[in-house]
C-alpha cells in the first residue's frame, strides 16, 4: 500500500511500540509463582501496603506478589473485571471487589469459593453486614477488607447553643432542624445525596430500613408496602413539606453536600466517614464543631446504615488459587487491618480492632463507627443488583424531584423489579 504516506506508517509503528511497552515489566524468575493483586487506587502513600505484601513474600518463599492498581471510578473497575473475568483471564489472582458486586460475580462463577478461609466460627469476628454481602447461597466468596457506612454529622456547637439533644428519630431531627433554622440565619437543616445515581439508593435505603421496611426479603421483591411508602413520603417531605432540605439536593452527591456542611451552612448532614477526616483539618470552618453519630430511625423503627467498602476475592481462573487465598487471609488478618487503618484511615472489617487502644488513640471516631457498622446493612444482595439499582435510582429521583408521588413510584418500581427477577430467572 504505497499510498499511505511514510508519516502515517511511522505513526502506526510509534503507537504500536507504545502499546507493547505498556504491557508491563519482565516476567518472573523461573520456579517462582507470581500472585497479582488487583485493586482500586488507594489514596495515600503506597509504601505501607507494599510493606504488607513484602512481609507475605517473606513468609511464603518462592511467591512474588505484584500489585496492580485500577482507576478509582467504580463503573470503570466493574467494566474491567466483567470484561476480563468473562473472558476467563488469569491475568490477576486477588481482586478487591465492591460490596455490591460479590453476588453478581459469584453467580457468574468468576470467584473462588473461600468458605475455607471464613468458616462460620470465624465469621463472628466481622461485622454482620459485610458477612451477609459476601455470602451467596450459603457459601463465602470474599473476605471483608474494610468497611464504610452512612453516618449522621451534626453541628455540636449549634445544638448546644440552642439546647437541643442529638436527635434519635427522624421526626426529632426535623423538629430540631426547623427550630434552629428559625433562629440561625442562612442555614440548611439537613443535607444529603439526592442526585440520580447510586448514592441516592444508599440514602433512601436508610429511610426504608429505619422504618422496618426494605426491598428484598427471602429473595422476593417486597417494596410497595405501607412502611416503605411512609418512609419515602418522609424523605420527600424533607424537601417539599418541611423545607429542611434545600431543593438542590436533587443534584447533590457526596462532595457538594460535604462543601455546604463544611462551609458551616448546614445543621445536619448524611455522609460517609471520609468527610470526618476533612473536617479535622484546622483550616476547616467547622473544625471542632462537628459531631458524628448513627443515623436516626423512625419511631418504633431500628437504626440502619447503608454498607459500603471493599472485600478481597480470588479469581476463579487463577492458576495460583492456594497462594492467592493465603494472600487474602494475610491481608484481612487483624495485624494487616490494623496497619492499613493506621496508614490509610480505613475502617477495619474486624470488630475486635474497634477496642484496640492504639487504634482508638489514632482514630477516636472508631468508637462511634463501631455502633454504626454494627447496624450497617448491604444493599439488596442479588446477582442483578445493577439493574435493580438503575430502576430504584430513577423512581427515587422521581419522588424527591416531585415528579411522582411515593405511592406511584413504589408501585412502578415493584412492577419493574418483579419483571427483572422473572426475566433473569
Amino acid at each position, binding site marked *: 500500500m504505497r499510498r499511505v504516506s511514510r508519516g502515517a506508517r511511522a505513526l502506526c509503528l510509534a503507537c*504500536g511500540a507504545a502499546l507493547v511497552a505498556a504491557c508491563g515489566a519482565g516476567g518472573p524468575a523461573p520456579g517462582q509463582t507470581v500472585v497479582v493483586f488487583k485493586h482500586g487506587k488507594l489514596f495515600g502513600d503506597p509504601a505501607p501496603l507494599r510493606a504488607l505484601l513484602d512481609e507475605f513474600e517473606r513468609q511464603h518463599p518462592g511467591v512474588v506478589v505484584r500489585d496492580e492498581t485500577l482507576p478509582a471510578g467504580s463503573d470503570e473497575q466493574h467494566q474491567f473485571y466483567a470484561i476480563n473475568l468473562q473472558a476467563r483471564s488469569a491475568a490477576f489472582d486477588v481482586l478487591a471487589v465492591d460490596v455490591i458486586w460479590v453476588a453478581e460475580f459469584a453467580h457468574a462463577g468468576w470467584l473462588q469459593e473461600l468458605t475455607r478461609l471464613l468458616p462460620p466460627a470465624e465469621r463472628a469476628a466481622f461485622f454482620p453486614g459485610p458477612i451477609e454481602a459476601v455470602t451467596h447461597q450459603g457459601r463465602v466468596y470474599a473476605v471483608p477488607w474494610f468497611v464504610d457506612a452512612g453516618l449522621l454529622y451534626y453541628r455540636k456547637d449549634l445544638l448546644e447553643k440552642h439546647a437541643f439533644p442529638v436527635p434519635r428519630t427522624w421526626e426529632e431531627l426535623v423538629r430540631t432542624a426547623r427550630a434552629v433554622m428559625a433562629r440561625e440565619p442562612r442555614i440548611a437543616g439537613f443535607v444529603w445525596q439526592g442526585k440520580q445515581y447510586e448514592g441516592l439508593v444508599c440514602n433512601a435505603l436508610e429511610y426504608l430500613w429505619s422504618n422496618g421496611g426494605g426491598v428484598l426479603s427471602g429473595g422476593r421483591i417486597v417494596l410497595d408496602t405501607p412502611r416503605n411508602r411512609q418512609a419515602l413520603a418522609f424523605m420527600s417531605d424533607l424537601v417539599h413539606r418541611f423545607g429542611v432540605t434545600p431543593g438542590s439536593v436533587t443534584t447533590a452527591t457526596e462532595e457538594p453536600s460535604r462543601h455546604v456542611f463544611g462551609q458551616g451552612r448546614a445543621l445536619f448532614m448524611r455522609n460517609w466517614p471520609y468527610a470526618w477526616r476533612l473536617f479535622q483539618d484546622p483550616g476547616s470552618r467547622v473544625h471542632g464543631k462537628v459531631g458524628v453519630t448513627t443515623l436516626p430511625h423512625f419511631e418504633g423503627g431500628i437504626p440502619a446504615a447503608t454498607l459500603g467498602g471493599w472485600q478481597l476475592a480470588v479469581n476463579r481462573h487463577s492458576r495460583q488459587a492456594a497462594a492467592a487465598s493465603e494472600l487474602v487471609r494475610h491481608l484481612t488478618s487483624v495485624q494487616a487491618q490494623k496497619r492499613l487503618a493506621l496508614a490509610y484511615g480505613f475502617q477495619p472489617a474486624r470488630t475486635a480492632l474497634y477496642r484496640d487502644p492504639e487504634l482508638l488513640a489514632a482514630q477516636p471516631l472508631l468508637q462511634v463507627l463501631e455502633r454504626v457498622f454494627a447496624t450497617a446493612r448491604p444493599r439488596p444482595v442479588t446477582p442483578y443488583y445493577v439493574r435493580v439499582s438503575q430502576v430504584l435510582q430513577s423512581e427515587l429521583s422521581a419522588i424527591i424531584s416531585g415528579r411522582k408521588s411515593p405511592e406511584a413510584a413504589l408501585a412502578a418500581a415493584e412492577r419493574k423489579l418483579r419483571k427483572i427477577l422473572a426475566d433473569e430467572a
Partner: protein
Amino acid sequence: MRSALRAAALALVVGYCLAPFLWQVITSLRPTAELMSLPPLIPTRVTGEHYAAIFHGHPFLRIIANSALVAAGATLLALALGAPAAFALSILRVRGRAVILAGVLGISMFPPIATVSPLFLVLSTLGLHDTLFALVITYTAFSLPLAVWLLTNFFGAVPREIYIAARVDGCTAFGALVRVVLPLAAPGLLAAGLLTFVFAWNEFLFALTFTATEAARTVPVGIALFPGLHEVPYGEIAAAAVTVTLPVVVLAAFFQRRIIEGLTAGAVKG
C-alpha cells in the same frame, strides 16, 4: 441611530459567546476561600493557586499531551487516507463516485453510541483497552467521511488539465497527486485537517469508554471526571477548562479563514 443599534447588538452577540468563558477565567483566578461565596462577583484578589494545583496534583499535562497526540495522529491518518480517496473520487473520476460519496456521507451520520459497544469489546479482547492507539484509529475512522467529503470538493477545484499536464510530463498518477494536486489543494488539506483535529479534540464518548487511566485519558474525559475520590475542586476545574480552551481558541482564531472555508466547502456544496 442605526449604527448605535447595530453596535449594541454586536456587543450582545460578543457577550453571549464570551460570557461563560470569561466567568470560567474569573473562577479559575478566584482564591479558594471566596470560591463558594458569590457576593463578590469579581474576586478581591487574584491567585494562580488553581493553575499550579492542576499541574501538580493531577496528571493534567499528560492528559493534554494525550489529547494533542491523539488529535494530531487522527488528523494525519485521516488526511493520509482521505486525500488519495478524494483524489480518486474527484480527479480520477472513479465509476460510481456519486454512490460512493453518498455512502461516505451516510457513514458520517453514524451515531457513536451505535458502534461503541462492539468496538469496546473487540478492543478489550485485543488488549488495546486504555491505549492511545485505539483512540487514534477510532477517531480517524469517524473523521474520515467528513475529510473525504471536504477534500473531494477542494480537489474538484483543481483544473483537470493541470493533472493531465503533469501526467503527460511524466508523473505517475500518484506522482501527480503528490507533486501537483496536493500542493494546489493545500488550503483544503489544512481546512479538513483542522476540522478533524477539532473533532478529535472534542470527542467524549469513545474516550470515556476506551480509556481507564491517564495512560490514554484525553481532555474532555479528564475534565468531565476531574474530581478525585474526595475532592470537587471547582477552582481547579475552571483552571483546567481555561487551560484546555486557550490552545484551541488560538488555533481557531489563527486558522479561522481555513476553518470557515472547510465548513462552507463541506456544507454549502452539501
